[in-house]
């Protein structure tokens, strides 16, 4: 392949961005789509196209784990072994796939049909245990579906596949976010407009000032639903009023917190709701350019959102002079390439600018100096998708759904050992018990509950007698954990907490960006100790060492990743210390022993 053949497309890509280097990931994707991997000549081509040193291109290629630097099979099968999949048998699934394809993770079948990759959470925990074949999510991998995906892995890309389209439990009852989730192919412009769509946008753009919009969102008590829970209206108000720089809205669609899969459903099944939220937010903060940063593994989300953007353009809801109001907005999709840390808002901005996903020192905060050093607001998908409801039905109605400090609903992602893993929309005042026992049908196989992670893998674990807590940010914080991303991972009495912790520590060791020394060294160190314990070589001092190391990591880094890596260690060991001691002192069995 000659890179000159790609120059036309490269030129189009470069036009989307204010600075050439921001086209780093799209150009690398372009190369990989055409060549299957990124060879050194491609790095040189990308470097000269962007006007950067080759070392910077190599930094990116080596940082994002979806880029291949060697030729791979014609298909790629990514098998998730993160905690939610692990709880539902991912290890056995991977073993079977390895045996039947006769390759190990990282390997390619001798005929070059497929490369097998073991990956961290793909955020499709409702399908656990699951895998991704090229762009398609498949699961649960049980019975014939497992056979199908192994067969499909060997057929030519584009040929008919046998694995069935997944059919998990997805809430469609609303009232805010999920009312149009029924249509598995998404809700498109016609249907959205028929549902009263874009009325909220019209109201904001024609009858309200930006400050009135901010005020409405403030009164609605809309909190940032990416995980931090910061009041959305207040965040918007931080944009300097007198700035002469361009203002950017950046949508954080880099959903990656293990246990979470809500944003994908919004983008795939109701993309116009997100677009409406984007237009309203952009109007409120005075932005005319929005970027949507979608995690690299979400191929379908990116395609569907792009289709919605194109529809909105055609109908005059995006572009110049939206609906004759004089307001302009351009929305550009930017795909990530496999790095959890890019969900941290400043890492996302660094990544969007073409660098490694390194979180930034704060201050300055993005609202003052964000994307391309301009004032920037970063909002999560679910947060923005809630905005049209607020503008359409009023802040009071939205606020009334939730608690005194958090309005509305959330899309709770329930996975692990429940009868019915799936996506549940509920007012944030719902308790964890209600969510598990009523919504998700309780613990499967009649087992007893042992532990729950209420807000994604970073959240501190709660025990079975700590689940009578409401799911809003403040209640869960008071309960010593956090609402986080809304990813609820349920563990029954058969769960081995040491191995569960091992899954979490591996995740953090894999995903640390490596910038700050306590996190870079601490996550790897912790994981090596836990792995030694699970290998049966633990010692009595390990638990105290783990707690000390976790404590030493906390609060000493640029972003909260290190804290998030410390919390599982602390909470698992403190709440299940007896189990850990027993595991160590009885010379814990390795998995193969258990199987025997």
């Amino acid at each position, binding site marked *: 392949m000659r890179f000159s053949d790609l120059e036309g497309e490269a030129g189009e890509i470069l036009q989307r961005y204010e600075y050439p280097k921001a086209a780093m990931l799209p150009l690398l994707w372009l190369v990989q789509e055409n060549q299957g991997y990124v060879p*050194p000549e491609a*790095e040189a081509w990308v470097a000269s196209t962007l006007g*950067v*040193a*080759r*070392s*910077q291109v*190599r*930094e990116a290629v*080596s*940082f994002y784990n979806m880029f291949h630097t060697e030729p791979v099979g014609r298909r790629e099968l990514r098998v998730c072994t993160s905690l939610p999949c692990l709880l539902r048998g991912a290890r056995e699934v991977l073993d079977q796939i390895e045996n039947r394809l006769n390759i190990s993770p990282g390997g390619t079948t001798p005929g070059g049909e497929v490369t097998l990759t073991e990956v961290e959470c793909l955020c499709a925990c409702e399908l656990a245990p699951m895998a991704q074949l090229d762009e398609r999510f498949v699961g649960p991998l049980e019975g014939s579906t497992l056979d199908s995906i192994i067969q499909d892995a060997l057929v030519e890309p584009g040929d008919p596949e046998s694995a069935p389209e997944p059919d998990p439990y997805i809430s469609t009852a609303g009232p805010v976010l999920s009312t149009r989730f029924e249509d598995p192919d998404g809700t498109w412009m016609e249907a959205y407009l028929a549902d009263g769509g874009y009325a909220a946008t019209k109201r904001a753009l024609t009858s309200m000032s930006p400050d009135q919009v901010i005020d409405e969102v403030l009164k609605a008590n809309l909190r940032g639903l990416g995980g931090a829970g910061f009041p959305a209206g207040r965040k918007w108000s931080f944009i300097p009023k007198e700035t002469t720089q361009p203002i950017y809205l950046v949508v954080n669609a880099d959903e990656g917190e293990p246990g979470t899969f809500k944003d994908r459903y919004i983008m795939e099944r109701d993309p116009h709701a997100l677009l409406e939220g984007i237009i309203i937010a952009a109007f409120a903060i005075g932005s005319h350019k929005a970027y949507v940063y979608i995690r690299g593994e979400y191929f379908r989300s990116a395609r569907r959102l792009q289709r919605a953007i194109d529809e909105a353009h055609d109908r005059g809801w995006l572009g110049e002079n939206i609906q004759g109001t004089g307001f302009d907005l351009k929305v550009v999709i930017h795909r990530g390439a496999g*790095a959890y840390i890019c969900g941290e808002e400043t890492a996302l901005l660094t990544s969007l600018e073409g660098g*490694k996903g390194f979180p930034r*020192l704060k201050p300055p905060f993005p609202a003052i100096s964000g994307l391309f050093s301009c004032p920037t607001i970063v909002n999560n998908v679910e947060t923005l998708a809630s905005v049209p409801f607020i503008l359409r039905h009023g802040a009071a109605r939205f606020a009334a759904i939730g608690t005194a400090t958090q309005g509305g609903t959330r899309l709770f992602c329930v996975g692990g050992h429940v009868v019915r893993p799936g996506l549940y929309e509920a007012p944030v005042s719902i308790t964890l018990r209600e969510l598990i026992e009523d919504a998700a049908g309780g613990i499967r196989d009649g087992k007893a509950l042992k532990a729950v992670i209420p807000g994604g893998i970073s959240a501190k674990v709660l025990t079975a007698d700590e689940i009578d807590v409401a799911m809003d940010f403040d209640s869960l914080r008071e309960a010593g954990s956090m609402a986080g991303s809304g990813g609820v991972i349920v563990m029954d009495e058969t769960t081995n907490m040491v191995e569960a912790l091992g899954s979490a520590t591996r995740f953090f*060791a*894999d*995903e*640390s*960006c*490596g*910038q*700050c*020394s*306590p996190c*870079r*060294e*601490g*996550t*790897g*160190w912790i994981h*090596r*100790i836990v792995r*030694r314990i699970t290998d049966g070589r633990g010692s009595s001092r390990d638990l105290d*060492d783990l707690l*000390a*190391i976790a404590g*030493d*990591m906390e*609060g*000493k*880094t*640029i972003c909260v990743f290190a804290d998030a890596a410390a919390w599982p260690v602390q909470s698992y060991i403190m709440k299940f210390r007896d189990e850990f001691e027993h595991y160590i002192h009885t010379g814990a069995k390795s998995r193969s022993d258990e199987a025997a």
Partner: protein
Amino acid sequence: MPSLTIDDREIRVSGGTTVIQAAEKLGIFIPRYCYHPGLSIAGNCRICLVEVEGAPKLQIACNTPVTEGMVVRTDSGEAEDGRRAVLEFLLANHPLDCPVCDQSGECDLQNFYMNFGRYDPRFREHKVKKQKAVTLGPHVMLDQERCILCSRCVRFTDEITKTGEFGIFNRGDRAELGIYPGEVLDNPYSANVVDICPVGALTESDFRFKARVWYLSSAPSVCNGCSQGCNVDLHFMLDRPHLNDRARLVRIKPRYNPDVNQWWLCDEGRYGFGWLDRARLTEVRGPSTDAPVTAKPNWDQALTSISTTLAGLGRGQQNSGNGTGAEIAVIASGQLTNEELFLIREILQNFLGARVSASVADEPGSSDDFLIKADKNPNTRGATLMGLAGPGAPGAEQIVDEALAGNIGALWVFGHDLVELFGEEKVRELSARVNLFVFSGTNENPTASFAHWVLPTAAYVEKDGTFVNCHGRVQRVGRAFPPLGDSREDWRVLLDLAGRLGMALDWREPREIFQGLARALAPLAGLSYEAIGEHGADLMPATGAEP
């Protein structure tokens, strides 16, 4: 101008100052790895943690701007525990190969461990393996395992040289420093990354395994490699000659000077010192005679002979001797100190009436818009101030032509290689034409073999004096160690000569010569060695703008 308190001491600093800078003003040193005042703030090493009253957690001093009334503790238990924790993390995967590491003894992992070490190590896992002893370029070696990923070198090649060679590849504890495979780190400032590397990850190929740093002595000086006059420290070793192939100077490091070179030094200047200990002139050589050489000529014989001839040719005795109408000519050098050039002016030009030129049309060397200047002499500006170079001064070529025309009776050349400049034939002819041809210099060169007298002189590291750089800043060089062999400082030779000529000079050493110089030359008025100090002083502004 916010005022704040650090460790109970109050200080007022300008707005925008960071805590680490404010502490430095108080003489409180806060440990740092990634922070470097010449580079952007990375904030990644986390060793500079301090306690700030009211903040929920420890803050990094390098990125915390001071605010009015801020109360900072660098010495509290919490701050020290924070640093201890960070240092333990940094050492977790560090190979601890100090016994074979060139950085040992000047390593900030070692240094800070003395204060913030956890002397009962807890790390009992296998360390991450990375590449060792990687040659990055002509001057720099990389050990990835020792690297603490502070990114100083990455920022140096991004921000200072803008050459972008370095990158940190991969992530988590697999992150590793490197340059793009197949590329070479050979920008003109490459070795600065060794200086700023706080650990033993980047070391100098040239210094590799030569000596433990604690064997080295250090003396401040100024690079003589070009007219920029970058400040340097000379690291030398006199008592272990076997370690460095008998060479005394082991390495040169940049010395911080905010007005000249900041923290930096070019590779050309840094590694251009081989001549100091190689092919040096160490003995006086006299006119060849037919008589068997029973004793080598010595300084006394040389200066007696030279002074007698010069006195015969000099002002007052002119035309009285050989009737050739000859006079004395001197080709001086921008490599000489101001003190020496001043003596040449006073003794040879003013007392003897010699024609003196320090205007030698060398081929211009490489240059850039940063530190490297095309004029490879450190003191052309000094020679110009004294009228020995620049407008009004004769060119060296004129003097050579005059000599060839038979109008010169005695020629004294300081350091220059006339053979390279004018060709061997001309120099051979010139040597035959003049009555006296003196070459004084530090090193063998083809011109020396045509001279009647060869006087071995001291290198700039072997003598005291001053240079004026191209921006009009007068700076001191100092004697790091004595002249090699029988070589002598030019100023000493010239003072000796003055005595033999009957001149009444009461200067005994460079410091005193400079006092005379400062009285004689307006741009230097009021200056002294003390006033020049370690960082130099700008000439009086009236002349500071001279070309």
